[in-house]
């Protein structure tokens, strides 16, 4: 008898169940725009407050109101935060999807549903808990126009009672969610409490899932990557941002604006920065390059469609050598794709952005903390290398709630790169594109530098070492070679790969970005089944030489990435053609964050070949 079958047998026999504590996923199905997001966030934060490792992922449609959305909360005493293939506890708040949601529920699972939901409940292998949503909200205390919204607080209260979420944790979470605004707290809390008490009086617990206080979240924060990236940029001295709204990058600009408006103002209220909503991404990158050229620490944030529009300017920026930071919060493409679903498919579009020969520095944050760090670091790197620098995050990392260690205050002073003052021009002269230091990085001056020889003409067309127009083949080639050298030499100075070597392991795994938690979990499971792996997480392109060493030390290396072509693998293969055959794809794109189970399945099946 399988585990599931025995569980079912237990349920049918009404016998004692093995408890599942702090180790399950919970999925809330609702309609977009119905207000369930607040309830879901409160649940996540309450679990976090109880010291239980938790993650929250919103799987939402491209829609403002009405289409189905699923919020998944995973609690894991082992600290795993990746998505799980299925959730054994579901809350059916959306009648549209209820039949499918219930059909998808695993045997032995638990189903919470509003008691007026008209649905066939004949499945015998799951536990049902009806919830009196209408009844608890059709009370004078709940204003009529808020009843649907506050109805979502009923499942918070019922779940809390059945799953044993502490009321004090809920109260703290609610308070946090509403930023301490008592009026809002008071509008919601009574319904949570009423539901909690109703469940105590009316529900007999018949399932095996519950939570229990731990002490595993002390010293952590719960935050999304976009807030972290925005905040990091504020600490990085961003001075000009131009952007155009696009999911999933909008919240980075919004969070940055909110942080900057308190952190970066003079006492008289004047802003030490400008954040401008451009008319499109083409104008956004134009403004960013104009600002970078004139000496601002400038940046933009966008997603795939915006990256596509920016292409011509990105090549211009590379060749004219203008610092700029471009955040790409990746979503599914091509074209509009699935705009609210995760992808890591813009590696090519960014690394090789624009026509002609380009290769751009790309930073690849793999955690919320790195979003913060790369927020400030990217501005340094852009000015240091005088070039557009990409930061490739994604929807999962950017918009979902992650447990993370506190942000670390920037560990390095601000780097403004090689900028000459009028005095330096007077003393040593100025040749804009001459490679004086042999590192491919030339010196620049800023407009306004008070010296008659400080100016130069910036152009995307052929130029010599003194920025003069030229079409001479030798000069053109020489300049391109210097540019290539400049980017090549950045390899060892960008955020280094994070490597975990396992002695004797023949299998290596390479990944980047938001797949990190799924890879960590997959490796633990593989190890438990006797399969040893090493792991290298790339944090920047072009990648360091240690990546080649890593591949050389393993017989087979699986490159995990959320795109259909295996873009990182192809980039790495071109870096190390002699080792190309060792690199194997674990790549796929369906709009969902990877699960450990899927990665394990891929590796196991390829290992058997």
């Amino acid at each position: 008898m399988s585990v599931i079958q025995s569980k079912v047998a237990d349920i049918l026999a009404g016998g004692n169940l093995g408890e599942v504590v702090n180790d399950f996923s919970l999925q809330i199905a609702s309609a977009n725009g119905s207000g369930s997001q607040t309830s879901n966030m409160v649940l996540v934060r309450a679990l976090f407050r109880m010291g239980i490792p938790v993650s929250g992922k919103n799987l939402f449609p491209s829609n403002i109101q009405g289409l189905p959305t699923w919020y998944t909360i995973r609690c894991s005493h082992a600290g795993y935060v990746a998505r799980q293939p299925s959730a054994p506890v579901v809350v059916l708040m959306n009648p549209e999807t209820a039949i499918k949601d219930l059909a998808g529920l695993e045997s032995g699972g638990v189903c919470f549903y509003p008691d007026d939901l008209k649905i066939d409940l004949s499945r015998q292998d799951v536990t049902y808990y009806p919830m009196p949503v209408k009844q608890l909200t059709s009370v004078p205390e709940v204003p009529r126009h808020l009843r649907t919204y506050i109805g979502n607080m009923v499942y918070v209260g019922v779940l809390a009672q059945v799953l044993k979420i502490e009321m004090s944790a809920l109260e703290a979470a609610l308070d946090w969610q509403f930023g301490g605004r008592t009026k809002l707290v008071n509008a919601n809390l009574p319904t949570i409490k009423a539901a909690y008490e109703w469940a105590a009086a009316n529900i007999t617990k018949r399932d095996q899932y519950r939570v229990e206080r731990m002490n595993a979240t002390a010293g952590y924060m719960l935050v999304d990557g976009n807030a972290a990236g925005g905040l990091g940029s504020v600490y990085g001295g961003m001075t000009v941002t131009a952007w155009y709204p696009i999911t999933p990058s909008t919240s980075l600009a919004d969070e940055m604006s909110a942080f900057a408006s308190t952190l970066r103002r003079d006492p008289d209220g004047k802003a030490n920065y400008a954040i401008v909503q451009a008319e499109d991404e083409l104008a956004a990158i134009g403004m960013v390059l104009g600002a970078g050229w004139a000496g601002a620490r400038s940046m933009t944030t966008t997603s795939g469609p915006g990256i596509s529009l920016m292409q011509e300017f990105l090549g211009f920026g590379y060749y004219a050598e203008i610092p700029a930071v471009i955040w790409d919060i990746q979503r599914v493409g091509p074209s509009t794709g699935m705009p609210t679903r995760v992808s890591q498919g813009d590696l090519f579009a960014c690394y090789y952005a624009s026509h002609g020969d380009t290769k751009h520095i790309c930073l690849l944050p793999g955690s919320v903390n790195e979003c913060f760090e790369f927020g400030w670091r990217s501005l340094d790197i852009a000015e240091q290398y005088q070039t557009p620098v990409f930061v490739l995050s994604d929807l999962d990392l950017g918009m979902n709630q992650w447990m993370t260690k506190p942000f670390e205050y920037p560990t390095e002073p601000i780097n403004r790169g090689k900028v000459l003052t009028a005095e330096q021009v007077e003393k040593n002269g100025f040749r804009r594109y001459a490679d004086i230091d042999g590192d491919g990085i030339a010196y620049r001056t800023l407009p306004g530098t008070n010296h008659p020889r400080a100016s130069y003409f910036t152009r995307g067309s052929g130029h010599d070492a003194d920025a003069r127009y030229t079409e001479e083949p030798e000069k053109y080639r020489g300049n391109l070679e210097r540019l290539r050298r400049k980017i090549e030499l950045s390899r060892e100075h960008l955020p280094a790969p994070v490597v975990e070597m396992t002695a004797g392991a023949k299998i290596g795994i390479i990944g980047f970005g938001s797949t990190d938690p799924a890879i960590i979990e997959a490796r633990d499971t593989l190890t438990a089944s006797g399969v040893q792996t090493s792991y290298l997480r790339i944090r920047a392109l072009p990648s360091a030489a240690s990546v080649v060493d890593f591949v050389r030390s393993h017989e087979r290396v699986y490159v995990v990435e959320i795109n259909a072509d295996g873009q990182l693998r192809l980039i790495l293969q071109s870096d190390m053609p002699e080792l190309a055959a060792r690199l194997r794809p674990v790549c796929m794109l369906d709009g969902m964050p990877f699960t450990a189970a899927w990665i394990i399945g891929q590796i196991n099946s390829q290992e058997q070949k």
Partner: protein
Amino acid sequence: MATATVAPSKLNLIGLDKSDYKGNPSTLCAGCGHDSISAQIIQVAFELGLKPENVIKLSGIGCSSKSPAYFLNRSHGLNAVHGRMPSVASGAMLANRNLTAIGVSGDGDTGSIGLGQFKHIIRRNVPMVYVIENNGVYGLTKGQFSATSDEGQKLKYYGDNEYPAVDLCMEAIVSGCGFVARSFAGDPKQVRPLLKAAFSFNGTAVLDIISPCVTFNNNPDSNKSYEWVRDHDSPLHDISFVPVREEITVDYEPGETKAVTMHDGAKIVLKKLAGEHDPTDRMAAIMLLERSRTDNVLTTGLIYYNPDRDTVQDSEGMVATALALLPDEKLRPVRSTLEKIVASLC
């Protein structure tokens, strides 16, 4: 014709010689209108005593957009991508609001590929002088129609133009521009005071200057040709620009002139030539352009003036210092602020 007096000395107010404002030798066709405009920019920058190091000159792509290389070598220049000079200029002026910006564009660069950015830079009122060297044709790609080509216009290889022209002054006015002027590259006496006034304007100042392309669009029946413009030019007024430091010495009869005072105290003195036109009346300006179109004349001069809008830097509530030059301590908030934020996220 009254023009502002030029200092008799060879040096200007800030002690520079006119040669300090020159650029590289032009590589445009001999007789190209764009070169006369470059010459006027040099002359005006010299006469105004602009500090070249404090000027930025930007452009898009086209023959016209090449011209920033031919003036003000001591200024930083940027030749952007086609049609996108406005965004680059906007970014630069956000980074350093204390610069003086001049942008040069073509009718294709502004009216076709760049129409959106043109309207949006005006909407934001980014302080800059925006010169359109309008020849009604794509010069650099060898003679295709542009958005300002007149309906019915004939071109050697492309036949008849079937589509109505975009009037860039009209577009500027309806987008909220506070300084809209039209002139002719063959009329330096009018171009100069308008350029000077544009440099004094605190916002986006648009100058649509008809600038004939002698190679691809100088047929007398083209309304962007030297001959046609000379025959159809209808100047609104005799214009004088009076810098702050000078008294108004122009000797017009009272009643026939109108003086407009600019932000920096300089004045534009307009002597009425043809008909009544009040450049501070937006509706009148729109009607004027419409009438010029139906009457098939080229009305030149200061078409619309309104100094009341905030600039982008003021709208954004920015500090007076150039953002580009802020010291590190203004760029990075202190450690304790981050500790507070971290605590709030736990």
